[in-house]
């Protein structure tokens, strides 16, 4: 059972995700995490001002429970199921990131420069996190799904719209990392 404390290889994690999708399909549900963001808006009362948010959010109760589970899973994975959470990324990438000011590269799960609690006193970093989240939320709803909804569910069903969306995801990611990061960091 020692392997469970180590990072899981792709050939364990990938099939696990497919099985999760299968279990949800067998339960009559469609795997899609970003739909919960819309549900949050509805619960907060966004349906009063906009009809995009006017739906019976209780029909998404199962998805909210999935979110609650994902939060618990993150807690368990980080505490009970891991001894060391540093991520062994490619050595070239470590050097590159350290040159950009990400000293924690190769030595942490998330870069402490933008994910330690110190950032709550750093308006620029907070702004970047907020912007990143904003683009994810706006883009996911505009595209009608995120990684789980398009890259996994939609593409598994060989749907062309999902392929277009995933091409968009990668185009956006490549632009951010290769063109915009040198300007931001």
């Amino acid at each position: 059972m020692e392997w469970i404390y180590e990072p899981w290889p792709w050939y364990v994690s990938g099939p696990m995700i497919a099985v999760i999708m299968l279990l949800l399909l067998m339960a009559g549900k469609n795997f899609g995490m970003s739909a919960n963001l819309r549900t949050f808006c509805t619960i907060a009362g966004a349906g009063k001002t906009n009809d995009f948010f006017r739906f019976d959010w209780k029909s998404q109760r199962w998805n909210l429970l999935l979110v609650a589970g994902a939060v618990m899973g993150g807690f368990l994975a980080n505490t009970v199921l891991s001894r060391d959470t540093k991520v062994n990324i490619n050595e070239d990438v470590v050097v590159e990131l350290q040159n950009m000011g990400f000293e924690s590269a190769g030595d942490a799960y998330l870069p402490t420069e933008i994910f330690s609690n110190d950032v709550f006193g750093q308006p620029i970093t907070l702004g970047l996190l907020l912007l990143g989240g904003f683009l994810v939320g706006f883009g996911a709803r505009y595209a009608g799904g995120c990684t789980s909804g398009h890259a996994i569910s939609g593409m598994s069903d060989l749907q062309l719209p999902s392929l277009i969306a995933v091409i968009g995801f990668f185009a956006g990611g490549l632009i951010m990392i290769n063109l915009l990061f040198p300007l931001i960091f």
Partner: protein
Amino acid sequence: MKRGIFYILIGVIFGITMFKSEAASWFRIYEMFQFKAFHMYGIIGSALALGVIFVQFIKRGKIKSFSGEEIIIPPKQKSVPRYLIGGVLFGLGWALAGACPGPMFTLTGAGYWPILVVIGGAVAGTYIYGLLRSKLPH
């Protein structure tokens, strides 16, 4: 009640998988967009390969859900601009924040509190999309 536990349990497995696979690590996302490791491509690729088999199995075998109903995977609306523009915006955010919606919740559980700012941004982005929806090309 029993059904509720089923979804929570699937969520727990999903959260553990996201964290332990390091798909929830900002570093892994950065590395992926630099094409410097196979790891993330292996995760998405193997999930997809098996996913295609599962979906074909359900469709061809006319497999019924646990409760005996027909399994419906709703076809996405035909369009190019909404998927391409929305997709690019999503990708920009995914690479900047280093997390897509599933891992955001996982990282909350792992205690990385700044991720709450990312989630706040994602909810705001969703809301603003709702307001602008009728003015955007779909």
